[in-house]
């Protein structure tokens, strides 16, 4: 029986668009459905990424979606010690802050150019299964129910991760593996216009406050707090408001946009493929558990998924076995790092403000010239080996 499409991608974020693009490029008949009326909005991101991450996923930098190039990062301890990392070496490793409203649209536009069809205001509401095989999705398009059959469904529905769960892959998270976030884009700030700032400790229990520059005196000022540390509804916003009030460089600012969101800080899913289904991006829980960054990982996973789906279309085989190369590819690239950073997160959660102060203070004496979790962990290993001994072999 001929299906409506070879591939139906649910969700037009970076991971979905990359999957759609690469699958369509290889000749697959692709439909990407997005529940919202606009791709990339409302935002749910602090928009920080590094060039290397984009490069690995084969996405050339287009200045139209870059907001700001970053010259370094500041890690600030509860007591105000600052660990500064200056990006001495230009080139690949350099960080930048995106305009995701534009970036997500650019990724989707590339999918369209490769031949993918895109429907907006179309929500997947369930999957259609035949025995143990996913054979399509049930959707609502502008209020009209419809059924779409597909050789393979792509769960690219982001943090919600409902498609996978409807199909029977359990992607639910424990509270200690969820970070709840709130962010303002603010203007009239007095922070450094080219530094990303991270404040750790009890100002943001189990997470951090961030300031990511967005040009001139504007920045994304946000917070993530571990869900297991929250007691009252709406508390995360209260933490952020309190911090902004306390920091005179921020309290002079005014908000232009407020956004919220959830981030998984868990190990990745155990299963990313089943018969007729593939999980990409946040839905597969492949966000970095330390930084909360998921853009680059999502793009990379999407690229692999699209390429493997292209092969599957040719072979007319969307079985778990045929999709498995995707699982292998993304794990080779990301899995060790995700586990290492999850273990590091678990360890850092146990540290008091006092210990964090000490760690940051001594780190300031180590020379780190590239901004990455790996480099920071190496520096910690040098000065505080006891903090990393449980996952030393992964550093």
């Amino acid at each position, binding site marked *: 029986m001929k299906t409506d499409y070879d591939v139906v991608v649910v969700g037009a974020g970076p991971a979905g668009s990359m999957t759609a693009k690469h699958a369509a490029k290889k000749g697959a008949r692709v439909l990407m459905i997005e529940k919202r009326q606009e791709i990339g909005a409302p935002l749910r991101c602090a928009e920080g990424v590094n060039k290397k991450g984009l490069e690995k996923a084969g996405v050339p930098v287009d200045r139209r979606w870059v907001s700001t190039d970053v010259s370094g990062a500041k890690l600030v301890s509860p007591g105000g010690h600052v660990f500064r990392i200056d990006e001495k070496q230009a080139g690949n490793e350099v960080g930048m802050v995106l305009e995701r409203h534009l970036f997500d649209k650019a990724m989707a536009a590339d999918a369209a150019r490769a031949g993918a069809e895109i429907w907006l205001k179309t929500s997947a509401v369930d999957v259609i299964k035949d025995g143990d095989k996913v054979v399509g999705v049930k959707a609502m398009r502008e209020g009209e129910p419809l059924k779409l059959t597909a050789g393979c469904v792509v769960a690219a529905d982001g943090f*919600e991760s409902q498609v996978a769960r409807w199909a029977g892959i359990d992607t*639910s998270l424990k509270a200690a593996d969820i970070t709840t976030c709130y962010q303002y884009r603010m203007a009239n700030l007095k922070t450094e216009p080219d530094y990303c700032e991270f404040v750790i400790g009890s100002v943001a229990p189990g997470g951090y406050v961030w300031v990511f520059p967005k040009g001139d005196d504007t920045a994304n000022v946000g917070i993530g707090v571990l869900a297991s540390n929250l007691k009252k*509804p709406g508390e995360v916003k209260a933490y952020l408001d309190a911090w902004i009030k306390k920091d005179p460089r921020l309290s002079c600012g005014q908000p232009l946009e407020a956004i919220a969101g*959830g981030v998984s800080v868990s190990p990745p899913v155990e299963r990313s493929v089943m018969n007729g289904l593939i999980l990409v991006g946040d839905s597969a829980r492949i966000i970095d558990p330390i930084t909360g960054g998921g853009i680059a990982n999502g793009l990379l996973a999407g690229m692999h998924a699209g390429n493997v789906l292209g092969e599957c279309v040719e072979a007319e085989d969307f079985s778990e076995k045929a999709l498995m190369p995707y699982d292998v590819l993304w794990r080779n690239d990301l899995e060790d790092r995700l586990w290492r950073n999850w273990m590091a997160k678990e360890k850092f959660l146990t540290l008091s403000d006092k210990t964090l102060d000490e760690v940051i203070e001594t780190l300031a004496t180590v020379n780190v010239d590239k901004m990455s979790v790996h480099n920071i962990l190496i520096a910690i290993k040098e000065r505080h080996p006891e903090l990393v001994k449980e996952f030393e072999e992964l550093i």
Partner: protein
Amino acid sequence: METDQRNGAHVEVLIMIASTEKCMHCGACVGSCPKNAIFLNEIVLEFNENCNKCGRCVRICPAGALKMEAKK
């Protein structure tokens, strides 16, 4: 309060309420719900019968838009 069909006793029934004024459509509650019992189309948030009133989404919601209340 509602009347239990089996024994006629009064039991407290909990219901979930989402504030449309406060909700920011971020999906944090949806992805955190252990029962996959919440659905958010672009603007409308719905709870289905799988919800076991664990209260996690109420705690997670960054905007404080969710409440669990006794049904009157």
